């Protein structure tokens, strides 16, 4: 069986879901952030695959993925900044302890 678009898409989906699981189940905020990065990467895989199989001559998908990387970088920067700020005030990066506000 030759590798096809579906393979890439399923791989992408799997990566996405692993990322999602990580984001929802880990207590360490930094790990959560990393999981989110995995999710974004998964999307990129899909985008590039689409680019390759659907519109091979127009590189929109690849460009899209490029932008996603930029956004990811920005998100990580801000996210880490917030985590550090939180760490300064709460001395923890445990997401389960971030429950000052509820109800």
């Amino acid at each position, binding site marked *: 069986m030759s590798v096809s678009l579906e393979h890439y898409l399923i791989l992408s989906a799997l990566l996405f879901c692993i990322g*999602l699981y990580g*984001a*929802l*189940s880990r207590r360490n905020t930094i790990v959560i952030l990393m999981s989110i990065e995995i999710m974004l990467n998964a999307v990129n895989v899909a985008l590039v695959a689409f680019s390759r199989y659907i519109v091979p001559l127009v590189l929109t998908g690849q460009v899209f993925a490029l932008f996603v990387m930029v956004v990811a970088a920005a998100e990580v920067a801000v996210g880490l900044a917030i985590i550090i700020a939180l760490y300064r005030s709460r001395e923890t990066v445990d*997401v*389960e302890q*971030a*429950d*000052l*506000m*509820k*109800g």
Partner: protein
Amino acid sequence: MPHQVPWLIWLSPMFSFIIISLILRPFFNHHPKLSGYTTIAAIGISCFLSFWVLIEVLKAPGHRLEIPDIQWVVIEDGISIHLGLIVDALTAVMLIVVSVVSLLIQIYSQGYMHGDPGYPRYYAFMSLFTGFMLGLVMADNLVFLFLFWEGVGLCSYLLIGFWFHRPAAANAAKKAFIVTRLGDFGFLAAILFLFYHTGTFDIERLHSLAIAGTLAGTTLTWAALGIFSGAAGKSAQFPLHTWLPDAMEGPTPVSALIHAATMVAAGVFLVARFFPLFEHSKVALTIVAVIGAFTAIFAASMGLVMNDIKRVVAYSTISQLGYMMLGLGVSGVAVGIFHLFNHAFFKALLFLGAGSVNHATGTFDIREMGGLRRVMPWTYITFIIAALSLAGIYPLSGFWSKDEILIYSFKTQPFLFTLALITVFMTAFYIFRVVFVVFGGEYRGTKLAHHSEHKLHESPAVMVIPMVILAFFSAVSGWLNLTGNFGEFLGHGEARGLLEGFFGILGKPLPWLSLIVAGLGIYLAYAMYSTRRISPEAVGRTFVPLYTTLSRKYWFDELYERIFVGKTLVNGLFVGLEAFDTYAVDGSVNGIADKTIATGRALSRVQTGQLQLYGLFIAMGIVAITICFYFFG
């Protein structure tokens, strides 16, 4: 005669009411007498005009005058309610009765009510009542009639509760109003019913429809019964009789005027007014007669044992009203109204007598009286005349009308005749029981210390004179029909010579029978309460259950007030409804509100502050929505 004049008859007391309540009471309260004078003057005018109207009616062809209407309210295209007057023989007679008795009682009241703080109020109400009553007898359509009908009921309420600070008076007033209203419910229904079937409220039009046979059958019967229900309420006929004895809590002149002579007779008048309707319904007429006869004996039986002089007279009134109904039922307008006419005078007189006695002794309890014939001769004599008239002793007025009723009922309803005859005996007994106990023997009053300090005395002239005048009427009013004129005037009578009328009656057996029965009653009273040959106590002991039953008024008050209104409705059904309202209706509303708030609390607890939970919801949302689409899309 100018058309406006009949209007003035009932408007004149109305003006008096307005003047007293808007001018005299607020601004001249320190001259209370003024209100009395105003009332007497106003009713004097009415009285004068009533006589004038009577003369005009006598002269008029068909004994009726045409009075133009005033349009009151248009309720539909072409259908409007008019305010108009009907002036015929019946009206004329009633006008005389009402205005004369009222005038006399107003005069009497000046003495009786002397010094009462509510003096102007009393006269204001009395004016109002007289106005309504006069209007009632003249109204030419059902709505207008009903207006006055309720108006007199209102005045009755106000006057029974005149001494409102006495709980008994307030209760009695309320009871009177509500019980009569129960009857009026039927009356109102009948009005609606008649309008539905005929499209008119006009009484004369209804008469002609009934006579023409357009209005007939069950429709007519039901309408007639509805009207009779109103009449029964006002005239305290069984089973709506319970209010009248209690109504004696009002000032005695009020009892005399409203609860003896006029308003209670309005029921009888009402049936008479609608007699063409009753006439064409055998069933209705029979029911009127039966109820009347039964009420007569039923009330009389209770009158036998009462110790309150006014209550005795009150039961007598109910009984006599039953007589009138019987009269209407068995023979027609003329007989019933004739008794009404006579009864008005002697019964008013009896009440005034009672008032006079009370004025002297300060009590109505006959056990606290005695020997008053010596100190109060005028009262004594007039009372005796009235009592004899009531007992139906020849040739006093009561005899004539009662006799006619007996004769007619003997002809058509022998059973009712028997009841009526027994009633004659009872009537004679209870009224003479009062006479002997109050006026005979020695004075037994002990309770009222402040009265015993004074000498017992005859009432002032202002009270005595009206009594004397009434006594005169009580004696002779029956003679008006000696020639059959009165009956003929009311459309039902046979002409005869004056002497034949006066003496001829003695040639028949039936009058003798009633005279003998009445005589026996008087004799029994004499034996028990004057000579004490028979001990009343012993009799009482012998018939304990009967005595109790009578003195407890057959437990009707208990049945109505305690069991029906109290236990069943107010403390029974209505409690249930209130609970339903509070717990089921309102409770469910509050319950829903509380549940919503509780749900809000519970749901907000899901918001734990755990951001991963929030993330879970997002992911779950995606999956769930997709699944939904898969299954429902």
